[in-house]
């Protein structure tokens, strides 16, 4: 028969101060782990949700990002007639030649500024991005130096509300609409007309072309045709793949999370060990009594291990609770590929919390192994005689 769990629970309650301190220690480690991983997760989720599975992205051959790709105007016209493109209600092909640029904007709170990504796009650009919808104002009209900005840009940067205007170089752009981009990478963009962008920023080329085909078969055929075309020097890839590539940015953050978690958890396991040794030291006589009552060494070993795991479990749950308020909090960092600011949110998923708790349990087991062994090996008589 195993030692009842109640015995362990009661003990944890009696020494509640020590229990609370240790559980909180473990909890904080779990909270830090969850937070850092939520940051990586949020960054990743932002990019993964950005690509639409039906879209293809065309870049110059050898380019790794939209920001360093060039597509000539003649090439864009050629692509239009290669066939296989999906069409909108008016019969126009769903294809948007785009260019991305950077402008430096001041933050709304006056704490300096940041590079913001400006995307010049054609009218089809909005249709090709169903995640984005206007929530205020209207879509821009080409030729009037108008722009639409994402909700998050409007919140974070100065002069980005509807009706306001901001300058870049000699040009003033008027904000006519605000869009919500459903937490995709477009949340960090300002959209203007592609031809205006080329005129104002002196570019005689586009950066990329985003298009949609009639279906998967047409996509495969068009990809093949474009890449084999001798006039077009392009690389065609599914939009979703392009954005998935960007998620490698989360790498250093994950590394940091793992590093912190490992080092801190060793510390927390030490403290759990300390607590368990103290708990066992104080109960030496009880252990002797248990043995006399007929509980086996193995059972006592398991009982103390269970106590340590219980303690860690409490810590783990506490850690989840501590980290939870951070879910959905927005933050930003630099996008290495674009050099512009990317906004994203901490994302705490059930899976992540489960990982956090599992992590706490590992700490509990590691912290409990040695003390439990000590408890189990105590000679009965000696234990009974202990003060």
């Amino acid at each position, binding site marked *: 028969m195993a030692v009842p769990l109640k015995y362990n629970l009661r003990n944890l309650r009696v020494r509640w*101060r*020590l229990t609370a*301190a*240790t559980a*909180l*220690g473990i909890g*904080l*480690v779990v*909270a*830090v782990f969850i937070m*850092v991983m939520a*940051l990586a997760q949020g960054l990743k989720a932002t990019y993964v949700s950005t690509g639409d599975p039906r879209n293809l992205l065309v870049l110059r051959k*050898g*380019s*790794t990002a939209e*920001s*360093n790709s*060039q597509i000539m105007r003649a090439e864009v016209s050629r692509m239009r007639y290669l066939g296989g493109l999906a069409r909108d209600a008016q019969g126009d092909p769903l294809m948007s030649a785009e260019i991305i*640029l*950077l*402008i*430096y904007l001041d933050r709304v709170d006056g704490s*300096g500024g*940041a*590079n913001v990504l400006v995307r010049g796009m054609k009218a089809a650009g909005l249709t090709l991005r169903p995640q984005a919808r206007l929530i205020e104002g209207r879509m821009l009209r080409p030729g009037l130096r108008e722009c639409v900005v994402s909700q998050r840009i409007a919140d974070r940067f100065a002069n980005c509300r509807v009706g306001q205007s901001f300058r*870049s*170089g*000699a040009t003033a752009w008027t904000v006519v609409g605000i869009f919500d981009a459903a937490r995709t990478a477009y949340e960090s963009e300002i959209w203007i007309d592609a031809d205006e962008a080329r005129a104002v*920023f*002196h570019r005689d080329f586009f950066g990329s072309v985003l298009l949609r085909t009639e279906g998967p078969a047409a996509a495969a055929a068009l990809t093949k045709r474009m890449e084999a075309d001798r006039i077009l020097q392009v690389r065609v890839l599914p939009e979703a793949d392009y954005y998935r590539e960007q998620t490698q940015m989360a790498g*250093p953050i994950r590394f940091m999370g793992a590093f*912190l978690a490992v*080092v*801190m958890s*060793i*510390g*927390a396991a*030490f*403290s759990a*060990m*300390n*607590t368990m*040794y*103290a708990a066992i*030291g*104080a109960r030496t006589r009880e252990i002797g009594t248990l043995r006399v009552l007929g509980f086996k060494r193995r059972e006592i070993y398991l009982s103390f291990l269970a106590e340590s795991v219980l303690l860690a479990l409490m810590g783990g749950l506490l850690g989840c609770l501590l980290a939870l308020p951070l879910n959905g909090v927005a*933050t*930003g*960092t*630099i996008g290495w590929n674009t*050099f512009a*600011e990317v906004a994203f949110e901490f994302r705490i998923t059930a899976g992540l919390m489960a990982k956090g708790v599992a992590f706490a349990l590992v700490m509990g087991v590691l912290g409990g192994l040695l003390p439990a062994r000590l408890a189990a090996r105590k000679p009965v008589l000696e234990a009974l005689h202990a*003060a």
Partner: protein
Amino acid sequence: MTITGFIIRNVLRNKRRLVLTVMSVALSLFLYTVLQTALRELTQPASTEESALRLVVRHRVSLANVLPVKYQARIENLPGVDVCSQFTWFGGIYQEEKNFFPQFACEGDKIARLFKEATFDPKEMADFIEDRAGCIVGVKTMERFGLKVGQKITLQGVIWDCDPEMTIRGVYRGGIDETNLFFHHDYFDELMGNPGVVGTFWIKATSAAAIPGLIERIDRTFRNTDAETKTETERAFQLGFVSMFGNIKMLIGSICTVIVFTMMLVTASTMSMAIRERMRELAILKALGFDGLRVVGLIVAESFGLAVAGGLVGCFGAWFLFRHIDIYKVTQGFFLKFDVTPHILAGGMLIAAVLGAVSCAIPARTTLRMTIIEGLKELD
């Protein structure tokens, strides 16, 4: 037995607990030191007397916009300019994308004057200036890829549509970032078909006093042109990149706070545990005639000792570790240096001292308030 001896005996009475406590404090302070150092490396670009004289002129809209090369003559004529070099970020790929290191096209004959804190071999420098398709590379990059002077190196253009093939003519050491590759702007222009543009101009001012006026003069010269400029000091320029990391400062700051807090918690509970189990002894000490303060002094010394020992192991452990590993290789170029500064060490030790003080506060109070009778009744 002396008082010190008594304290040491007490500390050592439970060796297992001693080791566990010291190690958990040490680990926390190790983390603190690592995080603070990382934060410092990321957010505080090295600055020297020489670098304080350097200015960067870029396009007002953003770094991704280029400036007309013809601006150079006008800048050079402004008072306060010592050297002005064309300076373009090439950002190409060497063999594989992950082999990142900075590459700049600049005016070869000017870099030695622009970066006085770096040491160049005069013979190699002359070779480099002589060879249009030559380049000069920082010692860290040379070692990282096992490059040798005289070897050919080809970069694959990403931002710029050209693949320069160059011969390494020299190595530089010291001062500035030791990972850069410098090559001739002339050669770059030739490959690009002379577009007449540069990324930035790097300037060395004649004196620190001339800088504020010079910044103003340069930007005023090009106001209301197609390409307005933004001139800033090298430090401000680099801090501009740092600010783009966004909230990383806050993130690391809050993690440090959490670590320190956790550590306090753990040590404080261990200390009170250690004291509680010897209440009876402390009562006996009091009965023997030690006054309350003397007894508290024993506790304070013990807790202080534990915390400071942990601090020494953690902070100086980190210091020792990072002095003996090549962080540049370990992080594959993410960190150039990882200097645990005296400032950070002092911060860590200060935290250890505060920790010692805080963690003995509650046990000390209990001891002071406890009467001898209560203490003697205490069972364990």
